């Protein structure tokens, strides 16, 4: 089975065979891959080089930490690669920006009203988390289209707070 792994625009073509061997950009390696804790810690021997990796997955994207260095890897197999290629460009950018909570927390203040004109870096919402107040600022100038939270609300990470257009 062939996969394409992409890290920082660098592409690795990886072909996995059944007999403990992989081809990485055509170069053969013997591998021995084990789960250590059944969760996210893996031990990988590549031609006797020993690597310990922590992995978190989101869809086909992997966050791989090796010796404390984070590597974000996108993996595609041949089939999905073709699909992605075919649909590319279909998702157009909209003029709206959804300002999301970057962390879970408690909304302390909402500093804008619907219809307000806001400048870039203007404070929109004060979010308290772990005893610090964090100012959520407008990423660019625009008009406040919608306010989805109020002071006192608990919000999850990624929850939309305010929509600016």
């Amino acid at each position, binding site marked *: *089975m062939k*996969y394409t*792994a992409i*890290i*920082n625009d*660098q592409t*690795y073509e*990886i072909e*996995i065979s059944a007999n403990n061997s*992989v081809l*990485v950009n055509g170069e053969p*390696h013997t*591998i021995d*891959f084990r789960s250590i*804790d*059944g*969760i*996210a*810690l*893996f031990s*990988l021997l*590549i031609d006797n080089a020993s*690597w310990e*990796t*922590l*992995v978190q*997955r989101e869809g*086909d994207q*992997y966050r*791989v*930490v*090796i*010796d*404390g*260095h*984070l*590597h*974000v*890897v996108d*993996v595609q*197999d041949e089939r999905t690669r073709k699909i992605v290629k075919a649909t590319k460009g279909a998702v157009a950018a909209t003029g709206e920006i959804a300002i999301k909570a*970057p*962390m*879970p*927390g*408690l909304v*302390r203040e909402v500093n804008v009203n619907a219809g307000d004109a806001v400048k870039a870096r203007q404070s929109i919402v004060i979010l*308290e*988390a*772990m*005893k*610090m*107040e964090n*100012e959520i600022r407008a990423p660019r100038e625009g008009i406040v289209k919608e306010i989805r939270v109020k002071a006192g609300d608990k919000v999850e990470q990624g929850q939309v707070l305010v929509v600016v257009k």
Partner: protein
Amino acid sequence: MLKKVLVANRGEIAVRILRACRELGLETVAVYSDVDRNALHVRYANEAFNIGPAPARESYLRVDRIIDVALRAKADAIHPGYGFLAENERFAKACAEAGIVFVGPPASVIEAMGNKIQARLTVSKQGVPVVPGTYEPLRDDDMIAQAEKIGFPLMVKAAAGGGGKGMRRVERAEELSPAITRARSEAASAFGDDSVYLEKIIEHARHIEIQILADSKGNVIHLGERECSIQRRHQKLVEESPSPIVDKEMREKMGKAAVRAAEAAQYVNAGTIEFLVDNERNFYFLEMNTRLQVEHPVTELVTGVDIAKEMLRVASGRPLSVKQKDVRLNGWAMECRITAEDPFNGFLPSTGKIISLFEPTGPGVRVENGVYEGFEVSLYYDPLIAKLCVWGPDRPTAIMRMKRALSEYKILGIQTSIPFHQKLFESTAFIAGHFDTAFLDERFTMEQGGDEEHEKVAAIVAALLTHDRRQHAIAIPPASSSARAGWKKFRSWESMGR
């Protein structure tokens, strides 16, 4: 003599103090909020009492409830740790009124030194140089008027502050008013006191502090310095003792100034005098912390003095177990604060369940831990979840050891500051000891990846896992993991439908 100690705190510092008590043969009482029922400090203490809901204002900051528990449990002393009520003179007073020993200085001293504004006055009277700024609580408009004289940039700081909270850097006059508002609000939320003051910024300063110990017999000693300049937005992240820039002569000078300041305040118990040190190695009093400091372990590691135990000793009316002439700094100690924050994402707080935890150990490594595998890190409290400390005969050995220990440290389920520390300990400037309090914010970046071999390994791992998922997309959980699942049939009492 003390028999039973209530620890009015949570997390790693509560565990630290409980350990000291256990080693002294003292009985212990923990207090906990609703979300902390299964926390390490609750399991560690001999007794544990619920004191309210998760928000600190409704539990760990509730003086009345904590005193009530102490009386019910017949505790004869309360150790406040750091944060929460540690520098709250009303709490110290309430303890005294209830006939309970407060493990720390008398309320009057907390008030005199704990209020940063008053402390600056007290200390400067002893000839100790202080950082220029305001010396009394002022209204916003008066403060804005004073700011012109002090000059920009400057800091707005909470009088009751500490740990970088309630603190704002202000570059220009027009930023001052909103910064004061923000700082007041944070201070009120964190400390229940919204008074703030202004302080001139000494550019490229180092933050170096002196640990002092004082007993009720009038003995005051210092345990040398701690270098705390590695800060991100005024939050200390790495500390060490000794400091790379402090020699014996400077240590003696700073130590004497610190002892003088403590004596002036009629200080009793453990405390820390924080100094800013400028380019020419002049030092200026910044503030005094009238409590156990987060970074106390580095001092313990180089002096061999157990500060937590000395605090309990002093609180029980006994003299210090160590004299100034016996204090020697042996070797080098460093501490990394392990926080539940994502260094790859602007140090945003990270919450969730700790799914897997491997802590470093072995020669010269000490972990001050506050969490365990399975613990849920919530958004209610300080993100500090553990401290990784190392000792070595010299700084290079300590650095190599810290790198080794960091590479062993694995926490899954939440993001932590560990990758930041690993980057820092690869930084040439840090290794050479060339840094100041602005180093992290101005001259350090947390970019991702880099090493080509690492990237290749990451690519292979991701491909193997994708392959695995494709092959077993509808597979039931594998047999190999069922052994553990089988053990899980003992359910928690809580879920038993009561």
